[in-house]
C-alpha cells in the first residue's frame, strides 16, 4: 500500500482515509487552492490553508464544514501527518506534505517558483515521492521576468490611452487578476474590473491584502466612464457582447500560453502578455530537483513528455491521469469564471 494512491475519485491516502483535491464527492478532502478543478463541490468535509479558506468558502457556498490550518502547521489524521506549504501559485495556495513512518510524499497541486509580489513564495519541501503538475512542461516555455512583462503592460496601457482606446486585459478572476492589480502602474489611470473579479478581489481585501482601488463595471455605464481606463476581465468575456461597450478598445491577454505565437494569433487578441501562475520548464526541473525525490508522479499538462524527460535523468517518474486542467481551462474558455459569476 502506497502512502498516496491514484484512484477514480482522486488522490487518496488510504492510511488516513482522506483525499487530496478529489474530483468526485468524498467524505474528507484536503484542498490545495480555490481554482475550480481543485476545489470541487460536494465533499462532506474540507481542509485547506487559512488564507485560502475565504475564497473556497465563498465559491462553494460552504458554512461550517470547512476547516483551515496555518502554513507549516501539522495535522494528524489517523496517525498520518499532514501539513500545507506555500506553492506560490495564487495567494493561499499550498502543496500538501504527507508523512507516515518517516516516509514523505508531497502533492504540489499547481505551483510556480517566480515571486509574484502577492502569493506566499513557493517553498521546496524534501520528500521521497513528489507529485508535480506539468502544465508548461516543455522547453519552449520560459517566462520573462515579471518586471519586464509589467513594463510592457504599462506601455500598452499608455499607448491605448494615446489612441483613445480602452485597454482591456483578460486574466483569470482568481489569482491572475489580483497579480495584475498588484503590479501594474496604478498611477496611469483608473482601473476598472468585471464583477467576477471585483467579488474575488474584495474577499482578498478583507483578508488584509493591499491592492489599488478598482471600479466595478456596471451595465448602466457609458463609454465616457471608461475613457483612459484599464479594464480587467475574465478570459470568458472575450468575444462576448459585454466587451462591446468598450469600443474602441485594445484587447490584451495575460497567460503563459501567450508565449507561443500560434496561440497569441488564434485568440485574436491585440496583445499577448506572457504571465503565468504555473512553473515554466526551468522551474519545474528546479522544483523536482530540490525535493530530492526519487519517485515523481507527473499530473496535468505535458505529463507523458515531462515524465519521460525525468526518467532519462535517472528518476523513477510516471505519468498520472487526473482531472486537473491547469491553465488549460484558461484557453478552452474559463469554466471557473462562469462559476464565479453565478
Amino acid at each position: 500500500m502506497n502512502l498516496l494512491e491514484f484512484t477514480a475519485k482522486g488522490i487518496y491516502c488510504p492510511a488516513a482515509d482522506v483525499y487530496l483535491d478529489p474530483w468526485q464527492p468524498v467524505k474528507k478532502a484536503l484542498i490545495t487552492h480555490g481554482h475550480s478543478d481543485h476545489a470541487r463541490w460536494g465533499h462532506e468535509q474540507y481542509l485547506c490553508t487559512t488564507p485560502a479558506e475565504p475564497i473556497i468558502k465563498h465559491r462553494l457556498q460552504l458554512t461550517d464544514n470547512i476547516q483551515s490550518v496555518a502554513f507549516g502547521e501539522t495535522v494528524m489524521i489517523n496517525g498520518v501527518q499532514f501539513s500545507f506549504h506555500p506553492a506560490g501559485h495564487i495567494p493561499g495556495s499550498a502543496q500538501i506534505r504527507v508523512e507516515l513512518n518517516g516516509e514523505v510524499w508531497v502533492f504540489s497541486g499547481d505551483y510556480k517558483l517566480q515571486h509574484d509580489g502577492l502569493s506566499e513564495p513557493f517553498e521546496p519541501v524534501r520528500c521521497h515521492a513528489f507529485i508535480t503538475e506539468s502544465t508548461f512542461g516543455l522547453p519552449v516555455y520560459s517566462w520573462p521576468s515579471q518586471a519586464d512583462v509589467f513594463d510592457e503592460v504599462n506601455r500598452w496601457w499608455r499607448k491605448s490611452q494615446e489612441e483613445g482606446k480602452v485597454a482591456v486585459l483578460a486574466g483569470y478572476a482568481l489569482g491572475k487578476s489580483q497579480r495584475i492589480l498588484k503590479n501594474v502602474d496604478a498611477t496611469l489611470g483608473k482601473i476598472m474590473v468585471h464583477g467576477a473579479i471585483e467579488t474575488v478581489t474584495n474577499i482578498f481585501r478583507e483578508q488584509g491584502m493591499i491592492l489599488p482601488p478598482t471600479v466595478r463595471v456596471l451595465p448602466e455605464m457609458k463609454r465616457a466612464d471608461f475613457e483612459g481606463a484599464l479594464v480587467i476581465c475574465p478570459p470568458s468575456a472575450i468575444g462576448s457582447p459585454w466587451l462591446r461597450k468598450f469600443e474602441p478598445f485594445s484587447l490584451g491577454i495575460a497567460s503563459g500560453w501567450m508565449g507561443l505565437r500560434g496561440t497569441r494569433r488564434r485568440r485574436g487578441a491585440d496583445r499577448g502578455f506572457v504571465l503565468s501562475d504555473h512553473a515554466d520548464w526551468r522551474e519545474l526541473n528546479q522544483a523536482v530537483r530540490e525535493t530530492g525525490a526519487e519517485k515523481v508522479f507527473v499530473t496535468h499538462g505535458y505529463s507523458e513528455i515531462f515524465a519521460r524527460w525525468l526518467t532519462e535523468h535517472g528518476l523513477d517518474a510516471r505519468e498520472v491521469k487526473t482531472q486537473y486542467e491547469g491553465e488549460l481551462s484558461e484557453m478552452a474558455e474559463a469554466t471557473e469564471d462562469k462559476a464565479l459569476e453565478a
Partner: protein
Amino acid sequence: MKRFAQLFTELDQTTKTLDKIKALVSYFEVAATQDRIWTIAILSHRRPRRTVSAGYLGTWATERAGLPMWLFEESYSVVGDLAETISLVLPEPDERSDETLTFWINFIKSLEPMSIEEKKEKINWAWHRLGGVDRFVFNKLITGGFRVGVSQQLMVKALAKYARVKENVIAHRLMGNWSPETTTYETLVLTEDTQDISRPYPFYLAYALEGTVEELGDPTEWQAERKWDGIRGQVIVRNGELFVWSRGEELVTDKYPEYAAFLELLPNGTALDGEILPFRDGLPLSFNHLQTRIGRKSITSKLLQEVPVAFVAYDVLEWEGADVRSWPLTTRREKLEALAATKPHPVLQLSPTINFSTWDQLREARTHSREYRSEGIMLKRKDSIYRDGRRRGDWWKWKIDPFTIDAVMIYAMSGHGRRANLYTDYTFAVWSGDQLVPFTKAYSGLTDEEIREVDRWVKQNTTERFGPVRSVKPELVFEIAFEGIAKSTRHKSGIALRFPRIHRWRKDKAVAEANTLQDLQQLLNTHG
C-alpha cells in the same frame, strides 16, 4: 534587424489593415534602401535561397540547448513552427547585435558554398548574437514561410502611400521576375520602364456572389461564362519569347510544352488571361488529371498524350504591345474572339459565353455546370475594366453547391501556425459493412469555438497516440463538402476528393447514420 523585427512585431500584433499600412509606411520611411527592397521581396514571398536545411537547424539548436532530439520534436509539434521552436529552446544570447536586415540576408546567402561544419559554426555564431524576435526572424529568413498577414494588395497600398505612386502602377511593377540582387528599390518601384519582358499583369480576382443574382441588376449588362476548375494563368508573347505565369506568380512555361504553339498563334505584344486546363475531345478533364502534370519534374510524351493541356482564354490584357486593361470587357472580348478565330488551334480554347437574357435562364444554365466539368458560373460586367487583386463589384463567381457526405471522425492531428497545439486536422471515414474506412482528411470549416470543443473532446477520447496523431473513439459525425470526386489508387477507399472541407458538425446524427462507401462509389460513377 531590430527595426525589421519591430515591424514584424507590429504587423503580428494587429489584424487591422490600417494599422498594418501605418506600420509599413513608417518602416519604409526609416529603413535603409537596401533593407527596404528586401522587405518588399520577403513580404512578396521572394526570400533568399535556402542555404541550410531545416533538419540541420533543428539538430544544431537541440544540441546547443542540451536537449534530446525527441523532446525537440515534441516541442515542435506543439509550437507548430520550426523557426519559432528553435528560437524558444535556445539559451539567451551572449551579446546583442545590431546588424541590418541586409547584413543577415547576405550572411545567409554566403553560407551556400560552405561545408556543413562551417555552416554550423556560422549559424551558432548568429544564434550567439541574436535574441528574442530578432532570432525568430533570422530563423524564418532561412526556413521561409513568413506569414505576417500582409497580402500583396496591402503591401501595394503601403508602398503606394510611401512612394506616392498609384496603386495599380505599383501592383504591376511588383509582378514578375525581379530580385533585390539584380534590381534596386529605385528601379523597381520608381522607374517607368521595365527591362523585364516576362513581367505579367496582376490578376483580377473575383469574390463569391453574396445574396441573390437578381441583386446584380439588369442581366443584359453582364457577361456569363463557365467557371473552370484549372490553374489560373497568363500567357505572354513578347519579342518572340513565350512566358506562362500561374496565379502564384510562378513562371511555369516549361511545364506545358504544348504552349509552344502560342509563339505561332499570338503576335508579339500579347498577354492573355485564362485557365490552364487538361482538355481532350472538346471537354476539360478533371482537376485530378491536371495534378498528374503539376507534380512531375519531367513531362513524358506518354503523359502529354494522356493529359493534354489547353489554355482556355477569357481575356486580353495586352494587345499590340499596349496595356489594354482599361478597355471595357466587351472590346477586349471582341479582340480575343477575333484572335481565336483567325488561327484555330486545340491549345487555344475560347471560354464560351453563355447566352441568357433573364437571371432564371442563367440559373437554369448553372444547373448544368457539372456536365461541362465546371464549378459554376463567372459573371463579369460588360463595361468593366480589368482591375488588379481581389475586388468587389465587377466580377463575381457563382459556384454550384458542393457534394456532401456524412462521415465519422476517426483520427485527429494538431495543426500548425495559428492552430498549433489544437487538434484541427481530422481524418474521416464512411461505413463499408461494419468497418469504418477512411476516405478523406479535412481541416477547415469549423468555427474557432467548435474547434476548441472538438479539441477538448479529442483530448478526452483518445484511444491511441502515434506521434502527433491521435486515434479517437468513432463518435462524432460531420458533414463533409467537396467539389469533385475521382478514382484513386493511392487511397485505401479508392477515391480522392477535390477541396474536401467540413460543412457542419452533425451533432444530431448517430455514428450508424453516416454514409457508406457505396454512396461514394455511386457519386464516383455519376460524376467521376
